[in-house]
């Protein structure tokens, strides 16, 4: 039983990180029907920013929670700025081009950002300090969940609730939903669609940066390439849940994380990444629009 719970917690932890990244894919797709291949790189840049900030702060003698908070805040701002800029530079000029052009631009952006970090930093794995605090009370009550897992799952849960409230009740959230459902009609009621698109990139990038800081603390090392696999997994999660659907991305991420965790725990860890894609294929055969995806509506 304990082993099962351990795997479940491991799965939820992975799933949480996938969810934080998957939201960026799904929200951007929902608004402009683009798969933002550079999104994984935004997550990677978030982790690197946190590493640099944490390093500087450590040199200046700071420690503990303040390092985590400062590093996260700077990472979020920095990644959001990258996401915002990527949209303006690589996608906005192609808004009226054929669907293939922005997709190619996205792949180009992804390669560019990877290589930019590779050149600016190094190709080696860099150790990442565990910025997450130790929660001793956990050990007294439960044996199967560690502090980092607890913090990752808890933080993600809180963020999901906040994001849901934002999307459901704020003016910006309503504008985002309206734009996703009918862009021209949103313009016709007065929505500034360019601003909505920018906001979507900013929110998605900020969430990815938080994911980057959390997972880097958990795993303990990063390099310029971590955005690639994480990006593919998160994208898989978004498709699994139904791309364009926000609850779908979260559900897809948790299902994916748990599948990987149980499959490696009970079957074999050699094929860890294979399970993700087998799951994707099976679900898409049974339900092509994904777990919570709605059927594509014909746009006029």
């Amino acid at each position, binding site marked *: 039983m304990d082993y099962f719970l351990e795997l479940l917690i491991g799965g939820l932890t992975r799933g949480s990180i996938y969810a934080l990244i998957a939201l960026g894919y799904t929200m951007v797709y929902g608004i402009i029907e683009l798969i933002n291949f550079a999104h994984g790189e935004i997550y990677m840049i978030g982790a690197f920013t946190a590493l640099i900030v944490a390093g500087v702060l450590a040199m200046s003698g700071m420690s503990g929670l303040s390092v985590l908070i400062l590093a996260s805040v700077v990472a979020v701002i920095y990644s959001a700025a990258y996401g915002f800029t990527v949209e303006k530079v690589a996608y906005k000029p192609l808004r009226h081009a054929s669907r293939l052009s922005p997709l190619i631009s996205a792949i180009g952006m992804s390669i560019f950002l990877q290589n930019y970090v590779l050149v600016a930093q190094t190709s080696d794995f860099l150790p990442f300090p565990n910025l997450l605090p130790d929660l001793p009370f956990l050990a007294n009550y439960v044996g199967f969940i560690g502090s980092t897992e607890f913090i990752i799952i808890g933080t993600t849960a809180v963020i999901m609730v906040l994001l849901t409230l934002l999307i459901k009740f704020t*003016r910006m959230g*309503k*504008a985002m*939903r*309206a734009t996703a*459902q*009918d862009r*021209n*009609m*949103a*313009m*016709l*009621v*007065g*929505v*500034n*669609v360019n601003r909505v698109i920018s906001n979507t990139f900013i929110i998605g990038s900020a969430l990815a940066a938080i994911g980057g800081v959390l997972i880097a603390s958990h795993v303990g090392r990063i390099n310029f390439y971590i955005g690639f696999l994480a990006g593919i997994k998160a994208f898989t999660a978004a498709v699994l849940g139904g791309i364009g659907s926000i609850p779908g991305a979260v559900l897809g991420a948790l299902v994916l994380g748990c599948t990987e965790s149980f499959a490696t725990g009970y079957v074999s860890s050699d094929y860890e990444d294979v399970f993700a894609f087998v799951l994707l294929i099976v679900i898409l055969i049974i339900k092509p629009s994904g777990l919570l995806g*709605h059927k594509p*509506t014909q746009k*006029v």
Partner: protein
Amino acid sequence: MLRLHNVQTFHGNVQVLKDLSIEVSEGEIITLIGANGAGKTTTLMSISGIVPPRAGEILFDGKPIQNVSPDDIVASGISLVPEGRRIFPRLTVMENLDMGAFLRRDNAEIKKDVNHIFELFPILAERRHQQGGTLSGGEQQMLAISRALMARPRLLLLDEPSLGLGPIFVKLIFDIIRKINTESRTTIFLVEQNAHMALKVAHRGYVMENGRITLEGSADTLLHNEDVKKAYLGI
């Protein structure tokens, strides 16, 4: 109030509006009639800023708006009830109305307007928490008109509001159009296939063929014009 002067609009390389000139005075109901593909929807899309004209001028209150963004055009007082209603399908009726008031901040007045709309269309009050996409065609048309009214436009553009509706709904919609015009002095630009009904409610009319105005005059004159009778009234 609104003046289109030699407007030329293209879809890609195809010119749809060719030297189109239309004038609308404050407080008027004008109607634009024409066959399928004449360019009626394109005219409204040009005014709204969704498909800006490549040449010519569109003046609203004397100011050029042909290069103004759609959201600023809404802000200046023009709202559109689009062809096919285009209700946000997965927003509730209430949220659709909220979206209509997107640029307004006067929450107390917005609430009043919602109540007014619920008096006008009680069925919408009943369905306020239902998703827009689940409404019937007639209900969606009421919601589309209501959504546009939530912006408190001074000029209301309507694109074939009676399309696909049964006779009872058609009558209701035209009654409402007249009411909006007389009660709140909203100027109305009505595009219609149902030329007979449209000319009955309008003060003046324009007939459009292939992106050009071929005939204009008072609604009465057009109703009795032989060409109009033959081509659009089926008499």
